[in-house]
């Protein structure tokens, strides 16, 4: 879901200056780049990494919320949560599809993820400990995702932009689902309100970290901005998110765990406290609470599913002899 300051962009360009200039001119004219269009190697590589990370984030993102499907407190919440987690799987699928138009296969990307080499959004390395975490994730994490995704609907690469449009249409229910849960809890019993406040205390700072390192520390953002793969800077999006979310928290009657949070009348935005970048980098480098568990879960699903995929392939070869599926005639 999120680009976290793509560390280490593409290799040295060997294309001519004329070619690069012509390509840049197309981008500047707001033309969409489509599959198989001539494009710099670095553009292709950066997109593969960014779209791949985004796709992996959606897939890994199924796990923290999936953790509560069997314990959802009502049938309505159970159905909504199952549909939301299913959507996340769908988003991963749309994004893998978009990446595949750039010449990488879903299998290769999956192998990158389960080997631990590929990155995905750091937020999903935190545990969902209570039902209120589910509300908080929908409200904050999907809220942050929307901040990032809406501008990407206008990114320069056609298939990615189109996938993002589809994702954004589906994402709006996700945030509303989360916020509605928070409202119900905040307006409920003392135990429920405490549960909501506790979840907010634990998820607020990691949500701010989702936007990546501060602009000064973010490598290779300039080229992505020039190529219209990244439309706003990390800090710009983070600020937008804070400004949108603080009133929502106030409406809930909950307190944000930041003593430095204050409305800045002069600048017309909220000032907020210092993010713990040590925690951020530790999690990005694999030392978050659940990094190993998340990757292990995806690896387990992939490995244990191998016999199924092999059987399906083997059967398909046999089915080539049949004109029509045995089940199809009704």
């Amino acid at each position, binding site marked *: 879901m999120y680009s976290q300051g793509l560390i280490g962009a593409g290799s040295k360009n060997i294309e001519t200056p004329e070619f690069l200039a012509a390509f840049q001119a197309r981008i500047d004219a707001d033309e969409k780049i489509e599959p198989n269009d001539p494009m710099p190697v670095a553009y292709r590589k950066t997109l593969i990494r960014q779209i791949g990370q985004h796709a992996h984030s959606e897939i890994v993102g199924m796990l923290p919320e999936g953790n509560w499907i069997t314990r959802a407190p009502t*049938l309505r919440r159970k159905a909504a949560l*199952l549909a939301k987690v299913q959507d996340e799987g769908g988003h991963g699928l749309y994004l*893998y599809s978009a990446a595949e138009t750039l010449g990488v296969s879903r299998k290769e990307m999956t192998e990158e993820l389960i080997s631990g080499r590929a990155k995905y959004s750091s937020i999903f390395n935190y545990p969902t400990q209570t039902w209120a975490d589910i509300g908080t994730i929908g409200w904050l994490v999907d809220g942050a995702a929307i901040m990032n995704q809406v501008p990407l609907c206008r990114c320069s690469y056609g298939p990615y932009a189109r996938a993002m449009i589809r994702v954004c249409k589906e994402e709006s229910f996700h945030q509303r689902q989360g916020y509605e849960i928070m409202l119900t809890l905040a307006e409920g019993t003392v135990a429920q309100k405490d549960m909501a406040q506790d979840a907010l205390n634990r998820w607020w700072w990691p949500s701010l970290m989702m936007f990546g390192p501060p602009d000064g520390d973010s490598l290779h953002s300039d080229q992505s901005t020039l190529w219209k793969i990244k439309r706003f800077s990390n800090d710009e999006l983070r600020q937008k998110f804070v400004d949108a979310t603080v009133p929502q928290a106030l409406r809930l009657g909950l307190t944000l765990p930041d003593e430095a949070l204050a409305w800045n009348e002069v600048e017309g935005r909220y000032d907020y406290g210092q993010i713990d970048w040590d925690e951020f980098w530790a999690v990005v480098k694999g030392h978050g609470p659940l990094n190993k568990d998340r990757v292990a*879960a995806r690896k387990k699903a992939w490995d244990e599913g191998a016999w199924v995929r092999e059987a399906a392939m083997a059967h398909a070869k046999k089915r080539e002899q049949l004109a029509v599926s045995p089940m199809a005639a009704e």
Partner: protein
Amino acid sequence: MQKPLFLALLQLADDHLILGHRLSEWCGHAPMLEEDLAMPNIALDLIGQARALYSYAGVVEEAGRDEDVLAFGRIEREYQNLLICELENGDFAQTMLRQFYFASFMLLFWERAQVSSDTTVAAIAAKAVKEAKYHRRHCGEWVIRLGDGTEESALRMQAACAFLEPYLGEFFYVDGVALEMAENSTLPDLLSLRGAWLADVSEVFGAAQISPPNLSHAHKGGRQGRHTECMGHLLAQLQYMQRSFPNMTW
């Protein structure tokens, strides 16, 4: 003494909720991403049908119990689902086979229930029949692919058949409730579905290169609230929030 219609609806609702709950456990762990979308679709259909059935059951009971009170608020001995619904998922072969058995049965059941003497049941059936048709198609395809795929998948499918076989006869177990529902044309006569179900299963099994199941030794008890050992653990998860935080709005 509870009304037979109430009990019949509860049986059906429990079948669908418990099985939907089991299937939802796969979410995020399926063998391929497309199945991580397909299985939740089936589970959502089942949960949706459960909700309609619980709601109607609550209306019929007239004791003020809504879908959630019924779904989350009973003790284990009060759940009346078929045993096959509560069994653990096992591997993908066992999951798909169990789902195929259930979908094939429910398709026949809902088709006939569309002409129920009870208009609410008929309406529920009209919607459910379309869903069951798709479930049968989807899961039947997997039974065939796995039964007639590789040596490993064939072995796993055979193991699944052996494991599930003792739970099949219960589909056609006619208790007092089922008898009365059939007599007043509210729900289909279960025994009348047996031949068609066996024929459907045999056809799919033929394509899957598996021998048809033997229904002679069937476990029973689900309809009387006598469950397997997995039911308690399932309910411990399902009911956790409502038991830990009773009488709250979610």
